[in-house]
Each structure stands twice: as structure tokens, then as C-alpha cells.
């Protein structure tokens, strides 16, 4: 099944499926309502026709003054099919979404990375700490309004004198 067929299939069977979109070029995706995301995720994994048992990638997107988007790339090992799920969040300072680490353990580290670099909180995550940046890092580097720091723990990024 392609993403469109999957969307038509699940639309009536689970609540929270908000829409289907196709970009000008590239892959289509299914839009899911943030409040229902956890139950939809469980449904996608357990339903016999879908069986999306692998979470390949979790990505955070920043559209300033518009929305945060969390993108899930899913893969079904038994059926060899793939789909993309997007969850939109309102663009406020502390976006948060239900964690799906209990549905797909693979999402655990990806969610931590999304928190670390994009600053999206995942509710119910067992270890919501930074993963790539140092623990005392300020700000979220992948946000569009991120300001590059000038020093880290007293170490300047630019040298004033020549060596």
C-alpha cells in the first residue's frame, strides 16, 4: 500500500487521522492530530494490515510563527511498506507531544535528539536529557531563530590574536 491507500484505509478505523498531503515533489504524508498521536501510533504498529513495527526516523521541523512539526518515518517489516506521519504542534515556546518510546523503543534516542536540537518535549519520555550537545548547552541549535554562541565555558569561538 502507498501512503494514500494507507490513509484511506485507516481514516475510518482510528480517530485522530487529520488529513493527507502531497508536496509538489517527493513523498506524501499523513497528518495526525497531536492529542491522538499515541493511540494512532499503537494502532499503526498492531493492526494486521499495517504492522508498522519499525520507527526509522523522528524529525523536528521549525516553521517560525506557524507551527512545529514532528515527522515519523515508519517501516513495516512484514509487509515491506513505508509511510510518513506528521504531527503539527502550535508554535509556542515549549512545544510538547506524547512520547512513543513504549510503542517503538527505537524512538527513544530519536526523541532525545529532537529535544536536544529542536527543543520539542516528549511527554512520558523516560530520560528527557540532551543526547548530542553537552548537558549545560543553552538553546536549541536547529531552531530557525537560534543565535550562535560566542563562547562555551569561557572558551571563545573566535581568536582575537593571531597564533
Amino acid at each position, binding site marked *: 500500500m502507498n501512503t494514500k491507500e494507507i490513509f484511506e484505509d485507516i481514516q475510518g478505523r482510528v480517530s485522530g487521522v487529520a488529513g493527507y498531503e502531497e*508536496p*509538489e*515533489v*517527493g*513523498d506524501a504524508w499523513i497528518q495526525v492530530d497531536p492529542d491522538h498521536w499515541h493511540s494512532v501510533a499503537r494502532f499503526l504498529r498492531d493492526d494486521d494490515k499495517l504492522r508498522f*513495527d*519499525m*520507527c*526509522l*526516523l523522528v*524529525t523536528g*521541523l*521549525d516553521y517560525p510563527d506557524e507551527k512545529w512539526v514532528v*515527522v515519523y*518515518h515508519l*517501516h513495516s*517489516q512484514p509487509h*515491506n511498506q513505508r509511510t*510518513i506521519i506528521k504531527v503539527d504542534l502550535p508554535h509556542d515556546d515549549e512545544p510538547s507531544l506524547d512520547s512513543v518510546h513504549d510503542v*517503538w*523503543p*527505537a524512538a*527513544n*534516542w530519536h526523541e532525545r535528539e529532537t529535544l536536544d*536540537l529542536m527543543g520539542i518535549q516528549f511527554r512520558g519520555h523516560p*530520560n528527557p*536529557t*540532551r*543526547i*548530542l*550537545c*553537552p*548537558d*549545560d548547552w543553552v538553546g536549541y*541549535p*536547529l531552531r530557525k531563530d*537560534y543565535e550562535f554562541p560566542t563562547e562555551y565555558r569561557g572558551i571563545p569561538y573566535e581568536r582575537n590574536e593571531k597564533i
Partner: protein
Amino acid sequence: MLNPAMPLPDDPLDRDILIGAGDISTDEMYINMGPQHPSTHGVLRVLLRTDGEIVTEAHPHIGYLHRCAEKIGECLDYIKFQPYTDRMDYLAAMNNNLGYAMTVEKLAGLEIPERAQLLRVIIVELNRIASHLIAFGTYGLDAGALTPFFHAWREREEMLTLFEKICGARLTYNYVCIGGVVNDMPEGWEDMVLDFLDRFEKRWKEYNDLLTYNRIFIRRTADIGVITREDCVAYALTGPMMRGSGIDWDLRRDRPYMMYDRFEYDIPIGEGKMGTVGDCWDRYWVRMVEMKESGKIVRQAFDMLKGAEGTHKAKVPKVFKPKKGECYVGIENPRGELGFYIVSDGSKNAYRMRVRGPSFCNLSILEKLLPGAMIADAVMIIGSTDIVLGEVDR
């Protein structure tokens, strides 16, 4: 956070120092394995909680090589970002170049000539051999066998010379580019590669005599670090890690890209020959057989190259602006599925560049795999994941 019941200081550095000095019982101990440790294959730190010789908890700490390649991808235009992909999985730089180039090409709707595709197949399969040679050599080192490493390095040295001849670089090639490959192969290169493969196949048998069927090595790897099929899928492990657990899955065959559907080759899976399916030996063996299979593909690709149409590169505009859209492409790297997810807003830079590093996902199972193992086995288990920290941290 290690133990929710244990109060920890707020300052992370103090926390690191104080860990292990708290009110834990006397026979338990925290050990920092890494960041500078020969068996962690780079700057990886694994915090082990041990009870005597047995690991009871493991917490991998990564990020020592973090350069935020994804942000760099947003700040540079598409063609300029290409060399940065070399620096992620530096042992398989050609494959990383390919993953990125294919994603951008899909976004831009570029058609790649047949000749360019075959040259790509040849070079990435050779790079797969070079990468697995390191996995083989250093895995021997982990077990305390020094000699196989020198054998592996001898062959890798020859391969690097071949790469140098075709693209001028020995580690970060930037050879596979958007639209094809940078230049066609030089004269006589084909014979050199075929000559190397002849020698390599003989030496491959020597490797097995040296290490694969070595009694001590089998005792160190068989039945150690067993990953079940369910765990494999749940943690989204890919590549040799997945095939080692007996899951017959390879992107090259099951979701074919480029011209992989036109080659004949076998895909090895773990069968539990020396112990249990999914143990360290199985993962090691999958990589060994893959080297041989890659050689087969390279030979077939050279045969097909004789009748191939087109040149080594498609025409790519100098100012490169894909349309608005987004796409994800996953390819079979030596370590698993390497994925690039690019969101384009129609400008010359990517709006969002996301990389799925296979090592990053493969490493995440350590938290589950290490508890219960002996400390010495922890070394073997980390070695069997065959990670490249440049890609874990990106």
C-alpha cells in the same frame, strides 16, 4: 539520570564525578568505559554499573564528535554540503556521498546515466569491502588477536590506493556527486580492481583460518550478546546487525535502488552456526560473507559497464534549486540503512536536512544488550555493533 531514587547534583559535571561515590552498596561499582578506550572504536563513553564482573546497567554517552551536520546542511547550498557527508561515516564515505546525492537527485528529478550508476555501484561496493575489513580487523583486536588486523590493513591499504587513483583522496573521497560521479575511471583501473579482487578472494580464506574458526575467538563471540528478532525490529536495527539475527532483509534487494535489481548476489543471514542465532559471531560472519558478495557485484558491474550508455555524469545546473517538497531516501550502507530526509522550500539551501545514521540506531540497543554480560563480553558486544562515532554524533 541513572537511578531515579538517587538524588544527583544539578551540575552535570559534578554529577558525573559524584556518580559511584553515593550510597550504593559496596559490591557495586560504576565504571566509565571510554571516552578514551581502544575497544569503543572512537570517542564513545559507556557508563557501566557493575556487580563484580557482571554489568547490571549500561548508559552510552555520545556526542563527543557532534558537529551539528544538520545545521551545516541548512546553511550551505546543496552542492557545498556534499563533502560534509564524507565526514559522517568516514569509513564508508562513498556510500554516504551516494545516499546524499540520491536524495537530492530524487528531489530535483534528475536522471542518472547508466554508466554513472554502474561506476557508483562499483565504488560503493568496494567501499563496503574496505569498511568491513576494518570491522573484521578491529574485532580481532577486541578479542586480543593482533595478527588479523595487519592482514586486514594490508588489503585496505591496497583498496585505498585504488580509491586514490580514481578520485585523489584516501579517506574523504567526495567522489559520488549530485548527477553522477566526479570523473570516469582512469585507464587500467578496471584491471587493477579485478586483479585486487582475485587476490582478495584468496586472502579471504586466510582470514577465516586466522580468526573466524579460531577456537578462542568462537568462545569469545558465540552465544554472546544475542539479539532476538523482536528486539531487532523494535530498536530499528538495520544492516548486518539485523541480518545477524536471522532477518532476511536487505534494502538493495527488497527495495531496489539504482541498478541493484540487475545483479546476482546472496544475502547472508545469521544461522547460529557456532551458537545462538543473533550472537556476536553471527554478526561478524554476516560481514565476512558480505565482503565476498560485494566482490561478485563489482565483477558483474564491470561486465555491464562495457555496454553501458551515457557518460559518468548528468548535466547539473550550476545554481541548483530543487522544487518545493521533501523526500526521504534510504540506502544500504555497510552499517545499515543510511537515510537522508531533506525538506526543500525551493531555495538554494535545504530547509531541513535530517540524517538517519545507522550507527546511531544500532548503538541504542546497548542499553538493553549489555546488562547481564561480563565486562570482557561488553567489549565484544560493542565491537560487534561496528559503529562509527562520526556518524553516531554527526
